[in-house]
Structure formats: C-alpha cells, structure tokens
C-alpha cells in the first residue's frame, strides 16, 4: 500500500481520484462518504444508508453520524487543500443542530476560517435540500503536523 503522503500528493496533482484518499480511512468507508470535485470546490456526500439512521420512527439520521461525517469531511479537506502530509488531529469539534436530518443524502462543504502554523480553524456546513438551509453547522480546530 502506498504511503499516505504519496497518495495525498497524487490526489493533489490529479493523478489519483480523490475517492481513493477518502476510502483509505476505515471510518469513512464505514459511513460510505463520497467526495465530488467541481473545479477546486469539494462537496462531500453522506449517501442515505440504513446504518446511519438514529430515530427509527421518523426516520431521521443519527446526529453522531452526521457529526462524524462533517469531521471527516474537514479532515479530507485539510489533506487535499492544504497538502498536510498526515491526518490532522481533531482538537475540538462543536456542532449546532438546526434542522432534522431526514433519511436522504446529506452534503457538506468546508471552509478554512483561519490557518495558523500549528492550528487550523475549519467551518463545516451540511445540508440536504439546498445549501441555504443547513441541517447542521460545525466549527472545529485541528492540530497540524510540524513538517507541513
């Protein structure tokens, strides 16, 4: 298996599909995360799937699955956009639940609010019907490696 850094470099140069990087993380495969690139923009997808259901009567997505999806989206975003050679460590993750997550596909986009030498502050927004009506927004800090 090629080194993670090699895989990241290949993804950034266009030689390898981004999905190969996503699938390198077992938890991302467990959730079924997909990534769609349009130009430089990355949209992450959590396809609807029985395994991410929380409330069975509604049915609604598990808030924890949506949170995990958003955290992992931010990690992949940092690897691809910033060229981090290693998986950044999550320092903290704060999520606001704004609307019910229905049993349908969920999308997420990330934005780096501030990138310091050691710490990145990332905003993540997730939606289902349209991106103007997010179901959740989150803010997270990640510890970057020293040799970035």
């Amino acid at each position, binding site marked *: 298996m090629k080194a993670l850094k090699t895989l990241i470099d290949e993804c950034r140069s266009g030689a390898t599909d981004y999905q190969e990087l996503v699938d390198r*993380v077992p*938890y991302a495969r467990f959730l079924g995360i997909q990534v769609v690139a349009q130009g430089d923009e990355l949209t992450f997808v959590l396809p609807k799937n029985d395994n991410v259901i929380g409330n069975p009567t509604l049915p609604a997505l*598990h*808030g*924890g699955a949506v949170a995990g999806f958003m955290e992992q989206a931010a990690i992949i975003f940092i690897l691809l956009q910033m060229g981090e050679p290693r998986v950044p460590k999550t320092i903290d993750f704060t999520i606001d639940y704004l609307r019910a997550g229905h049993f349908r596909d969920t999308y997420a986009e990330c934005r780096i609010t501030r990138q310091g030498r050691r710490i990145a502050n990332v905003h993540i927004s997730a939606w289902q019907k349209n991106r103007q009506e997010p179901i959740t927004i989150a803010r997270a800090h990640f510890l970057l490696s020293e040799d970035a």
Partner: protein
Amino acid sequence: MTDSSPPFTRLDVCNRFLESVRHSVVLGMEVISAEETAVRARLPWRDDLVGNPETGVMHGGAIFAMMDHAGGMSVTCRTFPVFEITPTIDFRVDHLRGPAKGAAVVCEASCYRLTPHVAFVRITSWEEGNEDAPIATGLATYTRLKIDKAGQVVGQ
C-alpha cells in the same frame, strides 16, 4: 400494599433505546449502567472505526456518536419512567488525547440540569481501565419533545 414502581429499570429503557437506534447498534455501542444521575456506555475498538490508518486510533466521530447517544440516555434517566424524544441542540467535544489502538472507549454522561424544555449534559470518555485519564470531554444541550406515544420507541 401496592408497588407503584415501574416494571422496568433505567437500564432496561436505555438498552431498548439503544436497540432502536441502528447507527449506535452498528457502531457496537453497549450500555454498561444507567442510574438517575449517570449513564455509562462502552464502544469496543474495531478496525472499521479507525480514523487514522497510520496509527489505528479510533475516529473522533465514532466516539462523538457514542457520547451523543449516551448524553440522550442520561436525559432519559432523569425523565424516567417517562420516555421523551430528545434531539441534540448543540454538542462540543474536546479531544484531550487519542485513545490507544485496540482499546475500548467508555463514557459517562450526566444530565446535571433538567428544565421543562432543555436538558444540560456533561460527558467524559476514557480508555477502558484508565478512568483517571480522560480522552475526551463533552458538553451538550438537548431539547425535550413531549410526543404522545414516544415510549413506543422503547417498547413502553
């Protein structure tokens, strides 16, 4: 003399709550104990929950999902024997350090303030057997939806 206590315990309700939530079941979450003031849950390490393929550390999202559900259960233990649907309003988790590869993660959730509409909850996680060195702390609020027949979710 009649016994007015319900024919089920807080642990019974939490276990039925767990069984009804598919994502928590597929994660492998287990409820260890359920008291009025605290709920303990456990998440065994599994290779498909790894977040960093280079270190084998469990993903923060999997730990978050357990802490979120355990937090909801801690509210259930306060409203017991009534079962309410309690969606999360917000949740912050601090990852103090990564759990060791292969270690099960245990968490304790405590609803320290219950108002008519909002529940305030604290959650702490550690590696099983290493309770004195937390790996993550969480702070969350949940809203109380008083839906008729909510108890059917847990078979009440």
